[in-house]
């Protein structure tokens, strides 16, 4: 088979090598626009896993590559005049220039034709090349010309991601991967540094675009930018220099393609490496993914033979795409972490470091403990005791928490009193008209108090505290019990009239609520206060107000559900007014030592609705008013919204609320293991977690004996 590869980067050359050394060798030509010795970028990083794949794919080049490797196993985090070291992260790096030289040499040895200085200008050139080859490979990077020849099939998207960054080198040789965080008068800057040979390190500087502009970097020359960064990181550099390699400040382009292969003039065309996909540089996986693409594509041709290139390309895409998408998800989480890391500068170094190391969701508390038991022991001791005098401490999930006078035995929240530090009731209506369904619990009569008192006693008997979630269903009320669905309206003759800020029904078939009058507002506020007093009388350790999930108080917050024109609608401040008035009145009615919580929808996940920024603002307002705990939830404000479900889907939102509004948070979002809870807590993303696994007793048996 005659193969033409556009682009002599790592993926193009490596694919050339693998195809040329196949049992039935292919005739490979690599075309590259730049000269053979052009260098862009400094070092590239590989994990141990990638090294294993390189060893199996081509042993001679593996030997050459690993000969010149810089290897390390630690990540150093330089933050607030301390350096924390976490070990057990096996990485290697090599100068990009060196890697390319090895691959060029090896490719030449195998008879791969390499032509440098070959400009491929556009789709016409691609079509001409296709006419004369059996397979055309686009290994030509982020701005792939090959991709442009069949955009309707590839369906590429390119989206800027994360902060602004610049790729420098330095003659300072780090002995680990090094994150450096430096506060400047313009804002926080961070460095991603790692060694790649005995003489030099990669030194990437990154900051939010606003900080970059404030610092005037958008108007600086190359030399001035270097001088700025050298001064900012003078302590770390210790007299060493930063070196530019035509380096410019960039936003990272996230590349995705609907399909990775197409046909041009009836010739199969396939994308590999950055042309097919990128992953934000903060997870350091670009070159690794590119070379793994080459390995997978080479293997697909071994498996399917050259008679059926279409099958090989399908196989290649099917194998690689899910893996790449997982990395892209992690990279997106990582990019977003770094674009908001300035919100974390109040965290103590152990928590800051733990949050950084677990930013992409790929590494948990348990993974870190396996890599570096001492590091995690240190974090656990700091978390449990706020100091480092102890040698051991329980993991975060099992540490106590104090909120005003309430002492929780552990950080896990459940719906039933066993194992949970805090048991939180379902929405308990402050009036019969505020129920979700006919059988919803209420707290508006003496009999309700007796029932709640029994629940408190039950919780106490298990060593748990009981918190009551007081609410009013608003326009989501008068629905059937949830066994066969939620938001299904009761038949007319069983329903009761609904209240809401505006007369807007929730979902298909839902009753249209009445817009609340001033009297209604006063009545509901008084009902919340009365219920709170009853809750205290019943012995509840925590009172929480439901301002979430599109129920009554939440529907005041969102512009999607609040169309009022009085003091309770319109501006964000006005929309917050009624929920805050209720919270204030309840706070005043509670004893000083009883903590007040709020379940708060911090984003609507719907166009025109509340954004996470709005959520942080609202949380701050509640905290300033005396709220001690924000239970972070999202969505369900309107029936048709766009949630993104996965394990821990609320953790990042909770991080933003906790560290943006500086208020303790409780978060759920499908945390299904103790490890997931430990990770959220140790990272400071929340202070309490809804633990899904508390719903089912642990059973070791696979089934019942006959």
């Amino acid at each position, binding site marked *: 088979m005659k193969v033409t590869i556009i682009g002599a980067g790592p993926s193009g050359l490596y694919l050339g090598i693998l195809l040329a050394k196949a049992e039935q060798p292919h005739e490979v030509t690599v075309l590259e626009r730049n000269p053979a010795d052009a260098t862009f970028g400094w070092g590239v990083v590989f994990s141990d896993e990638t090294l294993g794949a390189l060893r199996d794919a081509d042993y001679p080049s593996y030997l050459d590559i690993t000969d010149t490797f810089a290897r390390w196993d630690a990540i150093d985090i330089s933050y607030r005049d301390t350096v924390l070291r976490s070990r057990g992260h096996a990485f290697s790096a090599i100068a990009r220039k060196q890697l390319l030289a090895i691959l060029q040499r090896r490719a030449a040895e195998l008879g791969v034709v390499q032509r440098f200085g070959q400009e491929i200008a556009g789709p016409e050139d691609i079509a001409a090349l296709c006419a004369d080859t059996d397979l055309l490979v686009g290994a030509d990077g982020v701005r792939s010309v090959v991709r442009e020849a069949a955009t309707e*099939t590839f369906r590429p998207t390119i989206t800027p991601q994360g902060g602004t960054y610049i790729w420098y080198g330095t003659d300072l040789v780090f002995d680990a991967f090094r994150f450096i965080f430096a506060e400047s008068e313009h804002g926080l800057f961070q460095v991603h540094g790692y060694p790649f040979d005995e003489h030099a390190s990669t030194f990437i500087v990154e900051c939010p675009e606003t900080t970059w502009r404030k610092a005037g970097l958008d108007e600086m020359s190359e030399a001035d930018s270097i001088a700025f960064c050298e001064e900012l990181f003078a302590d770390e550099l210790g007299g060493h220099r930063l070196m530019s390699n035509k380096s410019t400040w960039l936003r990272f382009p996230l590349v995705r393609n609907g*399909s990775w*292969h*197409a046909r041009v003039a009836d010739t199969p065309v396939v994308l590999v490496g950055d042309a097919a996909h990128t992953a934000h540089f903060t997870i350091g996986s670009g070159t690794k993914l590119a070379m793994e693409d080459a390995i997978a594509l080479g293997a697909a041709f071994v498996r399917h033979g050259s008679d059926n290139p*279409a*099958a090989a390309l*399908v*196989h290649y*895409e*099917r194998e690689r795409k*899910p893996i790449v998408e997982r990395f892209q998800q992690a990279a997106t989480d990582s990019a977003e972490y770094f674009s908001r890391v300035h919100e974390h500068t109040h965290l103590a170094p152990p928590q800051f470091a733990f949050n950084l190391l677990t930013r992409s969701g790929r590494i948990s508390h348990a993974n870190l403990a396996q890599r570096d038991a001492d590091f995690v022991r240190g974090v656990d001791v700091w978390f449990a005791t706020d100091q480092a005098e102890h040698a051991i401490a329980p993991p975060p999930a099992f540490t106590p928490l104090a909120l005003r006078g309430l002492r929780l035995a552990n950080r896990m929240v459940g719906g039933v009193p066993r194992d949970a530090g805090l048991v939180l009731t*379902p929405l308990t209506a402050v009036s019969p008209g505020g129920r979700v369904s006919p059988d919803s619990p209420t707290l508006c009569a003496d009999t309700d108090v007796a029932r709640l008192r029994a629940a408190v006693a039950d919780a106490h008997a298990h060593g748990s505290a009981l918190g009551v979630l007081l609410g009013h269903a608003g326009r989501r009320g008068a629905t*059937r019990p*949830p*066994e*066969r*669905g*939620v*938001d*299904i*309206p009761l038949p007319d003759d069983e329903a009761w009239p609904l209240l809401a800020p505006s007369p807007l029904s929730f*979902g*298909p*078939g839902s009753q249209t609520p009445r817009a609340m009058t001033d009297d209604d507002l006063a009545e509901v506020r008084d009902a919340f206060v009365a219920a709170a007093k009853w809750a205290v009388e019943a012995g509840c350790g925590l009172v929480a107000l439901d301002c979430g999930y599109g129920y009554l108080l939440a529907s005041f917050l969102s512009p999607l559900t609040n169309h009022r024109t009085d003091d309770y609608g319109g501006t964000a401040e006005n929309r917050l007014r009624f929920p805050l008035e209720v919270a204030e009145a309840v706070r005043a009615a509670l004893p000083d030592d009883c903590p007040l919580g709020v379940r708060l929808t911090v984003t609507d*996940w719907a166009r025109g609705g509340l954004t996470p920024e709005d959520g942080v603002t609202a949380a701050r307002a509640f905290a300033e008013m005396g709220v001690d705990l924000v239970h972070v939830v999202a*969505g*369900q404000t309107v*029936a*048709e*919204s*766009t*949630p*993104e*479900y*996965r*394990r821990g*889907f609320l953790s990042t939102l909770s991080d933003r609320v906790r560290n943006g509004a500086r208020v303790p948070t409780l978060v*759920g*979002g*499908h945390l299904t293991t103790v490890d997931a809870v430990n990770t959220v807590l140790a990272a400071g993303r929340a202070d309490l977690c809804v633990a*899904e696994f508390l719903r089912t007793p642990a059973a070791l048996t696979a089934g019942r004996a006959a």
Partner: protein
Amino acid sequence: MEIGVGLPNTTPGATGALLTDCARRADAGPFGSLAVLDRLVYDSVEPFAALSAATSVTNRIQLATMIAIGPLRPGALLAKQAEAVHRLADGRFTLGIGIGARRDDYTAAGADHRRRGALLSEQLAHLRGTDYPGEILVGGNSGPAFARMARYADGYAHGGGPPRAFASAATKAHAAWRDLGRPGAPRLWAQGYFALGDDDVVQAGCDYLRDYYAFTGPFAETIASANLTTGRAIKDFVRGYAAEGCEMLVLLPTVSDVDQIDRLAEVIG
């Protein structure tokens, strides 16, 4: 996990005799369900009609749409059709519905493609509001689809892919279920395509998938390449789905031949 089998109502040239023959054999075989697909602009037998035929020749097996494209029908009509099959089958009917993937089906039906999600929600609300008695599954892979499933349905119908893709979707289904405050857990159904026989049968099955999914462009090739064409591939697939918590895996034949049901029965024994 139970294994279901597809009634070949969308493979070309399916006749009434073939469908009833297949239904009889499925009912006599080791299968937990017999399921149909739904496509308007394609040579196929309308799913509720196909299942109606199956009700008269089966006694035991659960009948299912996997899935029916709800918004192609007005909500009241959809409910009427579902109730009809439910009644004819004496309750042995699971209604799987989703929004489908083809715009031309909507155009032909005169349904509003832009409102497809909202329309499906309205239909589900109608079914629930009128006390439709049968089991309802909802399919789809988007956040809104999972939310809709958790709000209205009894479970989730996965659209296909390797076991790993099912595992990821199942996690989302559970997360959505809890987020919406539903008690218990969602039922989990899934599906895959197969063709068992000599090279010609396998080729015909893969050609059918290429044609059926031609509207997806190059993805049709991916679907065709995932067609399960050996006993071993089917066993691996079944094992993978069972390990990820699937409760009903429906295997859909890709050629119009009653022989496919028997061959599958032999493999899964």
